[in-house]
């Protein structure tokens, strides 16, 4: 399949960990193709899109802020359903779904696993480890905290040197400039986020 580097799965109201998706995961793993997900533009708005929690937002700003919850739900589903135990070669890319929420979700998942392990006995490691090993997150829209130092702190918590992939989303209005947007990243992290992580993920397909 010349030119193809990944498989895209449109998100719906069926979480990614549902076995409905397993034939696609099996094929993706067999062909060493990562699976990517991306906002649908209809999340939480139309019935065929994934719901956002609590109701339908009125304004674009509400929607754009809150769409990360769809990615959180799908990440939790992938890990808890044991998808990465079933398909150990599978890699998933969460595109434009945010990443600064990861510490909270990973900590919650690990904590719940410690107390509720018997419900998910197929998980042989803390849930966060499956995320670090199998899931990648794109940087745009990159975080802009009031304190610049917080960027490095968040990146440290989420092992950004492993899990982040640079993206611009250009020419959308909320694009990231490759020079300015990630300026607060430590240099060794930046090198990995800009190039190394993607090279390791896609391998020969993008060389």
């Amino acid at each position, binding site marked *: 399949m010349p030119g193809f580097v990944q498989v895209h799965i449109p998100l719906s109201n069926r979480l990614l960990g549902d*076995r409905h998706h397993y034939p696609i995961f099996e094929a993706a793993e067999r062909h060493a193709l990562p699976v990517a997900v991306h906002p649908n533009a209809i999340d939480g708005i139309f019935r065929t899109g994934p719901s956002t929690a609590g109701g339908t937002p009125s304004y674009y700003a509400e929607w754009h802020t809150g769409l990360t919850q769809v990615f959180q739900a799908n990440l939790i589903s992938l890990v808890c*359903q*044991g*998808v990465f*135990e*079933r398909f150990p070669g599978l890699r998933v890319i969460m595109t434009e779904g945010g990443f600064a929420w990861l510490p909270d979700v990973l900590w919650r998942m690990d904590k719940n*696993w*410690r*107390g*509720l*392990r*018997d*419900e998910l*006995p*197929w998980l*042989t490691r*803390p849930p966060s480890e499956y995320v670090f090993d199998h899931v990648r997150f794109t940087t745009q829209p990159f975080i802009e905290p009031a304190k610049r130092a917080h960027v490095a702190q968040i990146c440290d918590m989420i092992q950004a040197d492993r899990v982040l992939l640079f993206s611009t989303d250009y020419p959308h209005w909320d694009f990231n400039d490759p020079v300015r947007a990630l300026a607060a990243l430590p240099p060794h992290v930046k090198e990995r986020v800009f190039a190394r992580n993607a090279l390791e993920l896609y391998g020969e397909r993008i060389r």
Partner: protein
Amino acid sequence: MGDSKKLHPVGEASDLPDGGRKQVTIEGRAICLFHIGEEYYAVRSTCPHQGADLCGGTLGGSMLPSRPQEYVYGLDRHVLRCPWHGWEFDIRTGRSLFDPDRMRVRAYPVRVQDGRLFLES
């Protein structure tokens, strides 16, 4: 702690029926003693998480490591579940089920001599 093992008397075996448990204190440490079938077990009674008294937890089995979406029940009567947040410990070893190498409570061998129970520390 000295190099030699000490035996601490903790009562008569006949006072602890099969399925029974009791808390004892050895050198200031609360320890939970169990009688399960032919065996006696003793583990430190303080959960390493937030200090709950494990002796107040339920004893049962749990789901063993398995393939995704398959459940295999096992370890019946050997898994002590913390009454606060549900952390599971194997009373034979004191090891937690979720992180047996790093998260554990101390387990003490129990000796039966002339109908009396002793903890070894």
